[in-house]
């Protein structure tokens, strides 16, 4: 028999329709079918940096005036923020979401700023290190790839020796980039910090010149980072005359402080960074350089800013011009015969090919010709075991060559020839040399260490115990993911530059760096894409007061007892930090 429910009479009922019992038991969160969760995602700048630096994190710190802590964060991934803050082509900035909103953040200038502040305060980075290991690793070449690899390997506990062919360390950073772009003092400080970790070096030790891979048997692994130091020849008649030198040679001599006699009229052939650097260095030595480039400005591989600065300094560029012959007098180059070109159909790399205009020949009076039409590797010192194809060293996704225990990076492998890619390849090699020597499985490392989807890896994560690693979001936050109602247009701040009249007579630095005020203001333009910056919008907007304030500096807390899953917090989050997930039943 069913049980009868006793109903109250009218007189026994309250005058208001109100529950007679307390409703404290009723956690209204039980109505929810979607559950919000904080999930930090990948900011596009971090993903865009091949060196995998936590740019967003550093910008937050700079915005709070914590410049040195920002620098520490960069140093976790890259030993060269001072160098990169000056010479990196900053793909982070082209990835910056503000670029599609107003103007990208001046990340490169801010990187330089924090490095300058660290230098000013003689900061030593508090680096995380692992316990010492018995194995030793040899690094061939002390450019950005080699030194980065050594830096991380030492932190991973290995004994590392760097072999450098030249009498000085730094590779192309030292001998390829002129003082006015990268002061030797800045480079020297960052190299010293690497050496202080216990990296050994042997200079004047050129592979193939009394040193071979066989001599390195005591090392359980080798990292090859020889760099591209050989200049391509022009392939025109009269090229062997006096008064013709390569851009690489010229810059090396200038950078090593040798006296170089140029004369007045200097023709620089090429459109890459080496050509522009050589022309600007020649200008500073008192010459009047003229850049000859066979295509148009659009095809010039040099950084646009460098080309612009060269022109500011009064350097002439003759476009659609190719040299065809060197005319010598008394065995020394005196005239350069050139032709004019027009642009033909695109070639394999997509750039339009120059086509010679018949009969357009002309001659230019020259005292010196500098050829800078590209550099290549000199791999004659390497044995066949390493495997060489098209004058590059083929590697797998780890940077490992065919020969067991031999890894390679920098310009000699197939990747863009930039400082930051060299640094990235050095870090990658350090990680996989470690896993190789520990005989550990490496396949899962790409997923565990990735910073976004473009191949950058995080050394910070690698140095963490697996269980310490925060789960990685699979999403990189783009402009469409942001709630733009919360952002205002704000002009990008730029570094001041030395006056061009002063620049032409000295090798002093061209870019002058941010002051503190500008740096903080610029850093605060950051949207913090995908990373909670404790703005409290969720806390303010929650209509059910179901978000509680976290402890000072920590994330807010969802009160799932009372959250109804309405999603307003997610909608109002300016930076796409909150995700809604289907409630588990």
């Amino acid at each position: 028999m069913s049980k009868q429910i006793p109903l109250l009479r009218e007189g026994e009922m309250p005058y208001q329709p109100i529950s007679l019992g307390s409703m404290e038991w009723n956690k209204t969160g039980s109505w929810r079918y979607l559950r919000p969760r904080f999930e930090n995602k990948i900011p596009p700048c971090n993903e865009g940096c091949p060196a995998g630096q936590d740019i967003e994190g550093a910008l937050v710190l700079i915005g709070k005036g914590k410049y040195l802590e920002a620098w520490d964060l960069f140093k976790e991934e890259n030993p060269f923020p001072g160098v990169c803050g000056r010479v990196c082509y900053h793909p982070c900035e082209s990835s910056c979401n503000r670029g599609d909103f107003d103007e990208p953040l001046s990340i490169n200038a801010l990187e330089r700023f924090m490095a300058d502040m660290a230098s000013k305060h003689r900061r030593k980075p508090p680096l995380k290190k692992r316990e010492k290991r018995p194995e030793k690793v040899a690094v061939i070449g002390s450019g950005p790839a080699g030194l980065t690899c050594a830096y991380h390997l030492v932190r991973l506990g290995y004994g590392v020796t760097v072999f450098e062919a030249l009498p000085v360390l730094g590779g192309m950073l030292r001998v390829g980039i002129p003082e006015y772009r990268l002061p030797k003092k800045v480079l020297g400080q960052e190299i010293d910090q690497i050496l202080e970790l216990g990296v050994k070096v042997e200079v004047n030790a050129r592979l193939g010149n009394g040193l071979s891979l066989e001599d390195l048997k005591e090392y359980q692994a080798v990292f090859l980072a020889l760099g591209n130091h050989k200049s391509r020849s022009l392939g025109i008649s009269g090229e062997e005359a006096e008064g013709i030198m390569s851009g690489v040679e010229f810059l090396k001599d200038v950078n090593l402080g040798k006296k170089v006699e140029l004369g007045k009229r200097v023709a620089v052939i090429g459109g890459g960074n080496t050509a522009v650097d050589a022309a600007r260095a020649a200008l500073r030595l008192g010459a009047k350089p003229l850049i000859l480039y066979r295509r148009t400005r659009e095809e010039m591989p040099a950084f646009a800013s460098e080309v612009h600065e060269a022109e500011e300094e009064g350097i002439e560029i003759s476009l659609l011009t190719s040299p065809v012959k060197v005319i010598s007098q008394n065995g020394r180059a005196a005239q350069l015969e050139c032709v004019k070109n027009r642009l033909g159909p695109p070639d394999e790399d997509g750039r339009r090919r120059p086509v010679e205009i018949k009969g357009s020949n002309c001659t230019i009076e020259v005292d010196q010709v500098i050829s800078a039409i590209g550099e290549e590797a000199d791999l004659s010192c390497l044995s066949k075991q390493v495997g060489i194809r098209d004058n590059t060293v083929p590697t797998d996704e780890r940077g490992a060559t065919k020969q067991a225990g031999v890894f390679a990076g920098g310009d000699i492998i197939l990747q863009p020839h930039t400082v930051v890619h060299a640094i990235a390849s050095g870090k990658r090699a350090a990680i996989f040399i470690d896993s190789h020597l520990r005989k550990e499985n490496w396949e899962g490392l790409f997923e565990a260490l990735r910073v976004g989807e473009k191949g950058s890896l995080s050394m910070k994560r690698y140095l963490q115990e697996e269980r310490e690693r925060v789960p990685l979001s699979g999403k990189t936050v783009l402009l469409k993911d942001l709630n733009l109602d919360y952002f205002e247009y704000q002009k990008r701040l730029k570094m001041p530059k030395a006056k061009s009249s002063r620049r032409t007579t000295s090798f002093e630095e061209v870019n002058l760096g941010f002051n503190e005020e500008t740096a903080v203001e610029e850093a605060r333009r950051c949207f913090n894409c995908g990373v909670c910056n404790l703005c409290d919008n969720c806390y303010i907007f929650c209509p059910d007061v179901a978000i509680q304030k976290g402890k000072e500096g920590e994330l807010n807390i969802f009160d799932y007892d009372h959250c109804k899953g309405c999603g307003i917090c997610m909608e109002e989050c300016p930076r796409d930090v909150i995700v809604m997930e289907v409630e588990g039943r």
Partner: protein
Amino acid sequence: MKKIMVGNHAVSWGVMLARAEVVSAYPITPQTTIVEELSVLCADGRLKARFIPVESEHSAMACCIGSSAAGVRTFTATSSQGLALMHEMLHWATGARLPIVMANVNRALGSPFNIWGEQSDSLAQRDTGWLQIYCESNQEVLDTVLQSFKIAERVLLPVMLVLDAFILSHTAEPVDIPDHQLADEFLPPYRPDLRLNSKDPHIFACLAPPEYLMEFRYKIQQSMLQSKEVCRRVDEEFGKAFGRKYGLVEPYRCEGADLILVTAGSVTSTARVAVDALREKGRKVGLAKLRLFRPFPKEELLEITRGADKIAVLDRNFSAGIGGIFAHEIRAAFCNEKSHPPVYSYITGLGGRDTTLQNLNEVIYQTYERPRPEEQSVWVGLRS
């Protein structure tokens, strides 16, 4: 202290004297200056209330429901379309037994667009369970605000006091402002037993299943019926405190009358003049001013009109298909009585058109002439 003030400010000053604690309203002509004055009184501290601006009348009433449920004396004001927009929430306030007081400035409902006086807006809310009191003068407006809070808080039903657009709302008259201390004695603070309390959470206005809804409705009906006696007693108390009282239905020169006019609102004053003039001429005409509309004061009106031959009801409103709403109510209220005078129904002054002495004389003579009321309401002053 006497002050010259418009009817809308009389509302605002009444609210100040009542020490309302929350005011939430949305402006609409002709109500706007009530809210304006209240915001000034709140801003300069003469009224210590939280003034909550909202984006619509629906939100205004929802806001009032929340604050009243928290046990706080709450006021709002509106008119016409604004009142119509509140409709859903009006039922809610009654069902939740919240003693909210609202001033409604009578105004016609569109379309066509019209901002002038007409009683159709408040009468359309007849079935929402709100008490309704119609005022004749600015003094009565102020006094009725104080009375309304007292009535509402005793019977736990919301009260709507009604004043005519422009004729009262925007017309200045001398108003005697009660002493604040006396007003406090008349209207003590509102401290309900049941109110929102985060330390003792209950569901307010919870789900009532079929097993319980009828009982709640029955309680409202009982309270509404009892409220008539409460209205009478509060009016008595008010009279003792301030020397003015209004009654539920006010008889005017009804002694030995054979015809009694029934009016509500400011037209009553014009009717007083018409009655005086006809009495001079020896006509036995009287006037009953209907002040309370909900609950309907049937016994009081019946008592006043018992000896008369005819009742002529002036409706400044109309319900399509029925005609004058007051007349319809009176017929319905009297229909089970063994004998009552026949009810003549007249529609006048819609959309703010003046009801003149001439109109009133026409109504009175027509009522005398016709032996029986027309089936339908007669439209006075219609250009046909």
